[in-house]
């Protein structure tokens, strides 16, 4: 039982990281209707910025995290402006390929700057771990911070979208960008804002990911990126609570699958659950059912 709780906590912690990344995926998808495959690599950039500023220049963790958020936000907007905006009216696949190109680009730039050797990331969290039941269940500081950060971001984002003017503009664009434009919403600015928020979240996710799992390489973001993408689809892509639920569930399934079924098949289990969920509920757990008309 204690073992199970310990696995569960680990799963929720991993899932929270997936959830924050998935939020970025899902927001961009909801508004720009594109799969931003470069999102995972923005996470890696966020990790490297913190690594350089904190371990390299010796800045305090809070400042370097802030710098990282600013850099990633700017990077996200830049990518959007250069690579995606010209393709706003092109086919969805063209944008997908461009996103993959951007992903390769970021990885290779990081490889040229930082080299391929692993960097050990110093955790930005300095909270002592909590030990329960005589050390059978240990909850690390990173886990606590990750889970809290995930909940705060989730709540903040939901209220931002519900109550602020630009948030409602986002909703309108995701609902029907043509109509939104007619109603006076600046669609381009809204999409740019979405990319900015999504990339800022990626920086946070990068910091939390690297704090919990401190090996940093130019390819660090790729796999969590794909997993988060799966999580976003899992919860229903385009839905913010969906990304949260999908992320947490994915993390928990991954850890429990490893623990109780087979560590060799962990990925197959995660993907199999995804397949089953989608077959039962074709738009994901919390996705909207789209009515088709002739």
């Amino acid at each position, binding site marked *: 039982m204690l073992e199970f709780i310990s696995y569960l906590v680990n799963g929720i912690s991993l899932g929270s990281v997936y959830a924050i990344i998935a939020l970025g995926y899902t927001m961009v998808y909801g508004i720009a209707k594109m799969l931003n495959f470069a999102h995972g690599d923005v996470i890696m950039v966020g990790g490297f910025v913190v*690594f350089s500023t904190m371990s390299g220049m010796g800045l305090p963790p809070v400042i370097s995290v802030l710098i990282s958020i600013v850099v990633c936000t700017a990077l996200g907007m830049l990518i959007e402006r250069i690579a995606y905006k010209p393709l706003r009216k092109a086919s969805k696949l063209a944008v997908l390929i461009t996103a993959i190109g951007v992903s390769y680009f970021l990885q290779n730039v990081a*490889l040229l700057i930082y*080299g391929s050797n692993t*960097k050990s990331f110093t955790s930005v969290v300095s909270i002592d771990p909590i030990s329960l039941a005589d050390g059978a269940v240990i909850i690390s500081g990173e886990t606590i911070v990750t889970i809290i950060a995930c909940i705060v971001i989730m709540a903040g984002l939901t209220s931002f979208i519900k109550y602020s003017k630009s948030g409602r503009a986002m909703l309108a664009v995701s609902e029907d960008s043509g109509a939104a434009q007619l109603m006076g919403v600046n669609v381009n600015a809204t999409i740019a804002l979405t990319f900015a928020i999504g990339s800022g979240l990626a920086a946070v996710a990068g910091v939390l990911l690297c704090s919990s799992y401190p090996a940093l390489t130019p390819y660090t973001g790729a796999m969590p990126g794909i997993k988060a993408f799966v999580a976003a689809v899992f919860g229903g892509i385009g839905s913010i609570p969906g990304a949260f639920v999908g992320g947490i569930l994915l993390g928990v399934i991954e850890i429990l699958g490893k623990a109780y079924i087979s560590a*060799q098949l962990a990925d197959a289990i995660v993907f199999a659950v995804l397949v089953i969920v989608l077959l039962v509920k074709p738009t994901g757990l919390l996705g909207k059912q789209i009515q088709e008309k002739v």
Partner: protein
Amino acid sequence: MKKKALCLLLACAMTFSLAACGGKGGETSAPAEDRTETEAPAEAGDDTEAPAASGGAVFKVGGIGPTTGGAAVYGMAVQRGAEIAVEEINAAGGINGVQIEFQFQDDEHDPEKSVNAYNTLKDWGMQLLVGSVTSNPCIAVGEKTHEDNLFQLTPSGTAVKCVQYDNAFRMCFSDPNQGLESAKYIGENKLASKVAVIYDSSDPYSAGIYEAFRAEAENQDFEIVTEAKDGAFDASNKTDFSVQVSAAKNAGAELLYMPFYYTEASLVLKECKKQSYAPVFFGVDGMDGILSVENFDTSLAEDLMYMAPFVANSDDEQVKSFVTKYQEQFNEVPNQFAADAYDCIYVLKAAMEEAGVTPDMDASAICDAMKTAMTGITFDGITGKGISWEASGEPNKAPLIVQIKGGEGVAL
């Protein structure tokens, strides 16, 4: 409109393939434009290249390994280690007075790309090959070198089949050899009676060592308490190790055997600390480099033991000089890959001097001479002293057990 674009693409394709066609006009009389194209990388790749002094007669040595992609760290280390050795040899007058020209090609850790890299080097006129760095690509390239009868010395291709043909030799230990030796060491020194293993089930290197270790464990006085499905992880699942570490901890293992690379090992060590689990840690040669992980908290790795052919802070003169040069040029401590590659070039030198090869011989003739010469030499390098080779391609060298004490590796 689409057609236009297609025509354009087609034209491009044609030009590309024609440009490529020009390459093989005989080794010495390749068209001038193509020459510049292929030679450019050699110069751009290592600015340290000494120009061919004696009227163009040089030994052309090729290298293959991943310099992009997830395994780039190993390929880059090999490239750098080899370049240092080439530079030293050239500065000291070359091999029998002939300079070496070295070119390294990227294979992205993919067998298919590795064969492409090999063919690119062949077009360049390569006479001897140092590579490939990783196992599966090395097996694929081995098939080609065997067909062409080109001498191949792999610095780090550990799989058994890397040297299945008589033209291929290796510098490192083989997978079964490492698994066997580490099981013996643990058994003979009575390090533990209960052992847990974590390994990368998607990596041939790691899985190969695990198998040999498990087979030898039967003969030794300890027991493996975790099953494969508890301790395995794979390439797309190497972020979180909490489950594997918990499994080892709950099984009461006193020793954790970690036959995989140091990047993942640093995560496992951190996870163990998080779970307050402190067994004896035992790694293999992939563990070498853990201390060079930038910003790594070395206290996590205190008392870690691993099998290594090379210790960067050894008192050995050769090692010292290599490490200093490497640090000066690349600003990091060389790992075993760099050391293996450095030795590879010197082994080539020794064997080539023994065989008395000359630059005007073709690759196949050099290969035949080298096959005999390799079994005749005894080599003192930075990854071992008195190394000799079997005709099967396996090196005879004593494994060295290193333990990390106070943030530094100490040979036991």
